[in-house]
């Protein structure tokens, strides 16, 4: 089960994920990202309350990398707990997806990349 909450701070679009992203719930994340990249260019993903992610969730983030590059859309994840961060790390995906500690770092990185 996940809930996704969104809000805007300046020109940053913040997507907060709560709960566990697995094969059952990843579709909601997929739909949400698919929808927001149509209009937003600077996306911050707040993972402070993301308790779990499986490959289905990783796959969602991976599947938008190409489209985001082509559309010059920037996305940065922040606030990942150790377990969640580690799942990205096992496959080296932390090299492909921007991950930082805090929202402030995320804003800085989105503006820099």
């Amino acid at each position, binding site marked *: *089960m996940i809930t996704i909450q969104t809000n805007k701070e300046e020109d940053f679009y913040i997507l907060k994920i709560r709960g*566990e992203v*697995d*094969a*059952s719930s990843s579709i909601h994340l*997929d739909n949400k990202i698919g929808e927001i990249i149509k209009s937003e260019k600077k996306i911050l993903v707040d993972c402070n309350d993301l308790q*779990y992610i*499986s*490959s*289905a969730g*990783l*796959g*969602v983030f*991976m*599947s938008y*990398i*190409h489209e985001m590059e082509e559309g010059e859309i920037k996305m940065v994840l922040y606030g990942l707990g*150790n*377990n969640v961060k*580690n*799942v990205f790390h*096992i*496959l*080296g*995906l932390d090299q*492909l997806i921007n991950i930082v500690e805090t929202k402030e770092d995320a804003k800085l990185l989105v503006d820099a990349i």
Partner: protein
Amino acid sequence: MMQYNYTAPCSKKNLADIRNFVNKILTHHFNSEIEIHHMVLAVDEVCANLMIHSHKCNPKETIELLIDVKNQEVIFEIKDTGNGFNLKNYQEPTIKEIVVEKKKGGLGLMLVKRIMDKVEFIKNENSNVCRLKKKIPTS
């Protein structure tokens, strides 16, 4: 040596219960939070794959999970009666292929293989078994 088992209908909404079950048992026996999380993740990935690809998420069909906790090793067996999976035919995709071809699958088994010490898919006459082994250093 302790053995545990859990049977779940092939509906993805049961994955959270399977994870809770595995987590509870492993937490009872082991201390390393990161190792426990890895094993929970690997079992979740195998169960999700079976539910989706072998059973088309049909809740009338089930998968059975056995956990065998030994002194310095945990063995997980996930049994089902679906089509079966042949690891010999599995070509691990590269990360590049996943990005370029926007494949949402393929990452699960990669995780399982990185996490576990041994991954086997065994096809019997009436059932299939995915056996995962993980060595646990004594704490």
